[in-house]
């Protein structure tokens, strides 16, 4: 497996508070990595430092052989164009129709004048249509994005990210605002589509049962440090309990998992808004 992303001694502090305290990880193509940890552990901070939505305080990020922590301006935009991102609140442009939202994934790849007038190439348009068909939203392609359901919006979000032809896909709590059934649909599409394309996918989740079912690798984060990194089958109930211990939610729910597969065990269901949205 080819290493496409290396994070070295990554730190992020807010004043005296350290949100990330020296994280070092390697990611490989084809991996489906799920990052778990209690609210405020630093999951969002980690994922957002990778494509520099947040500037790390120190440390190195090497993506595709390029040092991202030093990139600026047009150079940074060029790198970001190769990293897809999916958000908890989908972040679609509500007034704009579905196919245009998907094509926004090309903005970082085309000259300014063309993007200004929406002159997407025919090849791009065909690819957008193919992606929408694959994810089951072809019928909705001219609907306004704000007319869709949450699950549909997130599927459009996946298409927009894949439209970038990324080598890396970051997803920050992609199913936290969805009902269990939509959550499952979204996770299935995400897993299948990134696997087929050999993309490395890093997903923040707070549902440990989802993590076990979908991940090819689980990373446990607690208080800004990596405390677990291994295969899903090595991620025992004891391990989960240890990670969520001292967190704001009950460590036994979901992690110990008597009803593991129903998808309703939101470990952080009662997460404090301050911790969860601070970085958003």
């Amino acid at each position, binding site marked *: 497996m080819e290493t496409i992303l290396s994070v070295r001694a990554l730190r992020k502090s807010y004043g005296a508070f350290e949100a990330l305290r020296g994280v070092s990880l390697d990611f490989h193509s084809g991996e489906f990595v799920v990052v778990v940890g209690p609210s405020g552990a630093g999951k969002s901070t980690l994922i957002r430092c990778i494509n520099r939505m947040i500037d790390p305080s120190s440390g190195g990020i090497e993506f595709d052989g390029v040092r991202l922590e030093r990139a600026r301006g047009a150079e940074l*935009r060029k790198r970001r164009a190769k990293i897809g991102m999916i958000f908890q*609140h989908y972040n679609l442009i509500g*007034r704009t129709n579905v196919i245009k939202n998907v094509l*926004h994934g090309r*903005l*970082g790849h085309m000259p*300014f004048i063309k993007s200004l007038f929406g002159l997407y190439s025919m090849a791009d348009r065909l690819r957008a249509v193919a992606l929408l068909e694959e994810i089951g939203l072809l019928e909705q392609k001219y609907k306004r994005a704000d007319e869709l359901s949450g699950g549909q919006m997130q599927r459009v979000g996946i298409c*927009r990210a894949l439209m970038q032809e990324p080598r890396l896909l970051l997803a920050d709590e992609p199913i936290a605002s969805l009902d269990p059934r939509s959550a499952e649909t979204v996770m299935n599409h995400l897993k299948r589509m990134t696997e087929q394309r050999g993309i490395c996918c890093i997903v923040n989740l707070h549902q440990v049962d989802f993590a076990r079912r979908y991940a090819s690798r689980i990373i446990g984060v607690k208080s800004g440090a990596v405390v677990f990194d291994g295969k899903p089958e090595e991620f025992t109930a004891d391990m989960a309990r240890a990670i969520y211990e001292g967190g704001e939610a009950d460590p036994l729910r979901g992690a110990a998992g008597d009803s593991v597969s129903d998808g309703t065990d939101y470990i952080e269901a009662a997460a404090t808004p301050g911790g969860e949205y601070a970085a958003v």
Partner: protein
Amino acid sequence: MRVPLSPVSHKLRVTATALGVAAVFTGSAFFLKLDAVKFFSRLQNAGGVLRRFMTIDLSVVGAATAEMIGSLAMAVAALCIGFFISLVLAFLAAGNTAPSKPLAAVIKGSAAVVRAVPALVWLLMIVASVGFGNAGGLFGLLFPTCGYLIKAFITSIEDQGTGSVEAMRAVGASRIEIAIKGVLPGAMGQILAWSAMRVEFNVAESVNLGMVGVSGIGAMLMRALGKYQYGAISAIALVMLITMSALEILVNRLRRGIRGGK
């Protein structure tokens, strides 16, 4: 048992406020030496003056309409230029799109200063420095236009939130692409509604502009006033009234159309 609907302290506060307002009004009236007796005795003359105003001099209607169109043109031109200046500055200053916080603070601060100074003062200052004439008038109108629109546009842009901006940043879009593709689709309706509203203010200011000496219907009105041509004054006022009413109806239609199109 009695159950007061609000706490006693609250009632006391309301009473104190009412007394305070009454005291301030009485003080102001004394300060201005308002003399009700003299005022009402003078009112008796009003009848005669009003009668003279009733004879409308239709011969000036044509000229007044031409001047009114000139004033309208200046108002619209100032709005168009001000629209683009304000849009750019608002994107540079809105919390979710600003590239730099100090720059945003400077823009917001300047717009606040421009708004704090009355429009007529701006007109006089600009006209005094660049001279009378249409260019001076246009330039003078730009200040109040931008002061108003920048603040309004910033609100509309900030209403779009950070999510769409974040998504566009993540795909590698540039600032202009973020503004045009990510923020404008949601903000455009409101931005147009604010601009339509500003048309009315601009026409009113543009008429004032004539009164301080720049061309337009305001200048014509001042001349007629100076010569006590009551018939002409009435005709000019009538043209203004009809234009402003028509404009208001048009703007309301436009704003309803924009809202309906959302």
